[in-house]
């Protein structure tokens, strides 16, 4: 097992990211000749894919699928910096308020048609149009307008200057779809990505094949990619051990030692920015009372939760999704674990006798149901009688998330500070599962987006984190590590703290 701590975002990287209006496109190493692809790679997932339309995907395994089939204008390098994707180059003539992206020529969709700027405009508007009810509507940044001045240029106009815009386009909602092939996106998706859709057997596997006309010369190297779903843990493990699969996307942390024992397998564990908030709906009782939220925060021993759920494979968090590795990390502290203080807050709020509450958690995402079980006795110590309700992940997304009062959610990290805070905590945010609407936080987040001065921005984001730590709607007890396993012969797949999987350069040897 190697622990690769190098590939996390650092402050230095962030500065580089902001560094210039124009980032020159690094030319692709031309020496590589398009070799005939070889090998079949099967990646295992615990969950099964529900949607393949990138505008509507909500879970990180789906992000992996769309990342393989589609391309974005930009993509992230190993250091999470945006580098050219379908856009060869980009610039902002007015310091970040509007952005021009120049499309690469000769890119073709899987059905043969060439990529045009209109496709990009169409793809963005699909997400942004409120009528489509895309979950990513508020996650693409403060876009006002998207236009195509010519066939190979796309122009984004923003509400104000927004430095991280090229990075934000790397996510799932920034995928470019063919505007003439959207009706069947969930059945037979068509993109420009390295692999083409072959077959999707729901609940079993998604089979993709090499896109021979991929715009990156010589890539991809693999013939076929399968995303296979294994609801049973033992089965997933056994499949990897027997060579049925070559990669296990996400290993539950408690099993890292076991999987590491497999002889043909290499396990990589890195700190990730993924987190599992205990969400409190702040628009309805009991959590509309900030004192109750604070009582809950003080009742929970974050250190304990981290030790039980992650067995130490992560770091303690302070109720904000900004990880210590972030350039905008503010060293804030949530109210400390103090049962007496928590009880006092409860009685101040008129709940000295406590109250019953249902806590929802999925049993299909490692850590969620465990977190629920670990905090149950802690909350019961201050009189909140917890009834745990475990639900499968798909139903969690449909019925619990953004609906129930109290639940354990599950998030992978986001590349930009804006994405790490705005969608969750702004009152209009796409992922505001708390229905949190704090005018001050809204104002700070809006202001920080537009603020170009780095230290002023850091100050604004620091204030947000402070506010969230003190009486925010989420208890974020930890950032978990991310562990993934591959057979030793698999190379060229970078391990991303965001749990993304880039298969362009993947190859199987031996």
């Amino acid at each position, binding site marked *: 097992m190697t622990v690769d701590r190098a590939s996390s975002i650092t402050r230095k990287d962030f500065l580089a990211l902001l560094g210039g209006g124009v980032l020159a496109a690094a030319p692709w190493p031309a020496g590589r000749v398009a070799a005939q692809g070889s090998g079949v790679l099967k990646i295992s997932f615990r969950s099964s894919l529900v949607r393949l339309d990138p505008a509507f995907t909500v879970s990180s395994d789906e992000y992996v699928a769309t990342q393989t089939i589609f391309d974005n204008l930009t993509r992230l390098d190993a250091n999470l910096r945006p580098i050219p994707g379908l856009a060869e180059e980009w610039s902002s003539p007015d310091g970040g308020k509007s952005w021009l992206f120049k499309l690469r020529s000769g890119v073709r969709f899987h059905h043969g048609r060439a990529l045009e700027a209109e496709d990009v405009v169409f793809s963005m508007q699909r997400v942004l149009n409120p009528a489509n009810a*895309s979950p990513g509507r508020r996650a693409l940044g403060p876009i006002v307008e998207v236009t195509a001045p010519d066939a190979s240029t796309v122009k984004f106009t923003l509400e104000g200057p927004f430095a991280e815009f090229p990075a934000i386009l790397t996510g799932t909602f920034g995928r470019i779809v063919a505007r003439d092939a959207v009706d069947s996106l969930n059945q037979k998706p068509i993109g420009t990505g390295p692999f083409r859709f072959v077959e999707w057997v729901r609940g*079993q596997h998604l089979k993709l094949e090499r896109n021979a006309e991929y715009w990156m010369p010589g890539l991809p190297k693999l013939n076929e990619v399968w995303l296979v779903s294994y609801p049973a843990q*033992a089965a997933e493990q056994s499949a990897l051990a*027997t060579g*049925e699969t070559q990669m296990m996307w996400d290993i539950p942390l408690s099993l890292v030692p076991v999987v590491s024992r497999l002889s043909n397998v290499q396990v990589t564990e890195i700190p990730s920015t993924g987190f599992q908030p205990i969400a409190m709906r702040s628009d309805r009782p009991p959590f509309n009372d900030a004192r109750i939220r604070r009582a809950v925060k003080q009742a929970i021993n974050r250190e304990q939760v981290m030790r039980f759920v992650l067995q130490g494979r992560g770091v303690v968090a302070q109720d904000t999704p900004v990880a210590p590795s972030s350039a905008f990390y503010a060293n804030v502290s949530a109210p400390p674990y103090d049962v007496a203080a928590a009880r006092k807050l409860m009685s101040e709020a008129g709940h000295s006798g406590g109250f019953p509450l249902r806590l929802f958690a999925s049993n299909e995402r490692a850590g969620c149901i465990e977190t629920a079980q670990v905090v149950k006795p802690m909350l019961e110590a201050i009189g909140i009688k917890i009834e745990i309700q475990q639900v499968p992940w*798909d139903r969690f997304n*449909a019925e619990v998330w953004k609906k129930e009062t109290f639940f354990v959610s599950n998030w992978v990290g986001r590349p930009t500070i804006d994405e790490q805070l705005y969608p969750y905590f702004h009152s209009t945010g796409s992922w505001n599962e708390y229905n949190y609407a704090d005018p001050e936080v809204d104002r700070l987040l809006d202001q920080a987006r537009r603020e170009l001065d780095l230290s002023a921005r850091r100050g604004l984001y620091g204030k947000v984190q402070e506010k969230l730590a003190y009486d925010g709607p989420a208890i974020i007890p930890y950032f978990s590590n991310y562990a993934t396993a591959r057979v030793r012969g698999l190379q060229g797949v970078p391990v991303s703290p965001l749990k993304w999987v880039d298969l362009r350069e993947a190859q199987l040897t031996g």
Partner: protein
Amino acid sequence: MRSVLRQVAIRALWAIATLIFTSILVFTATQLMPGNVAQLILGQFASPEAITALEVRLGLDRPAIVQFGSWFGGIIRGDFGVSPRMEVPIAPILIQRLGHSLVLAGLSLCLVALIGITLGTIAALRRGRALDRVLTGASLVGISMPEFVTGSLLILFFAGILPVSGFAPPQEGLWRWLSHLVLPVLSLTFIMLAHVMRTARVSMIEALGSPYVRTAVLKGLPKRTVVLKHALRNALLPTVTVIGINVGYLIGGVVVVELVFSYPGLGRLTVFAVQNRDIPLIQACTLTMAGIYILASFTTDMIYLALNPRLRAE
């Protein structure tokens, strides 16, 4: 002959009547479920107006009886509607999954019938002796072990030797296909085998003690003929009934086993539907299962009819 046809017809009519009755039951039950189909289809970010519009388009605003009519009419035409969660028509998926499950269930049923009757007969012939005790004891353990326990233990012991999950289409090679079936079939077989063996044993003991077997013995027939021709033939009757009853159990067992072994069959589809409150899919899956059960009962009746001349004649 006419009376046989008559009985077949009556039973077929009953089967159809039961199926209709069950479909009403399923429809009513799903109507009671929380959750809104239109909301399911449009997702969490849909506006109330859009939901209402879709409800009108789908006819969800009509009275329940009208909805039932169009739903049932659709089923008769082979149209089970569209799954809101998967956003695809249900029928093709249902048929594919059903096929996978039938392979699993069919193989298990054949094994169970074959081994169960054989072991039951052997135990009955060795009644009270060591072999009988061992088999009876083992069957007691068998009926006490639910599939998910058996399955988990099989996974524990066979992980790395046999595939413990998934499905391989037969086109990928017979062995690959079979190897994926071994453990699920074993798990299903174990619990049912015990039931069938016990019934076969008891009815065989009863048959062996019957006057007609005594007649056969005193006719001087060789033991093999007495056992296989005279006793077994009659002992099969209650055994067939129990195998028929076990089909109902099997369907439930398939659900669990498919989950344990991630086998893409009707059972897992049902669990998916139920867990996700995919109402049209729940309706389709449960009704299909009920249909299989009813068909199995009908088939059992027919086999019973064929084996039992007493029912056949006037």
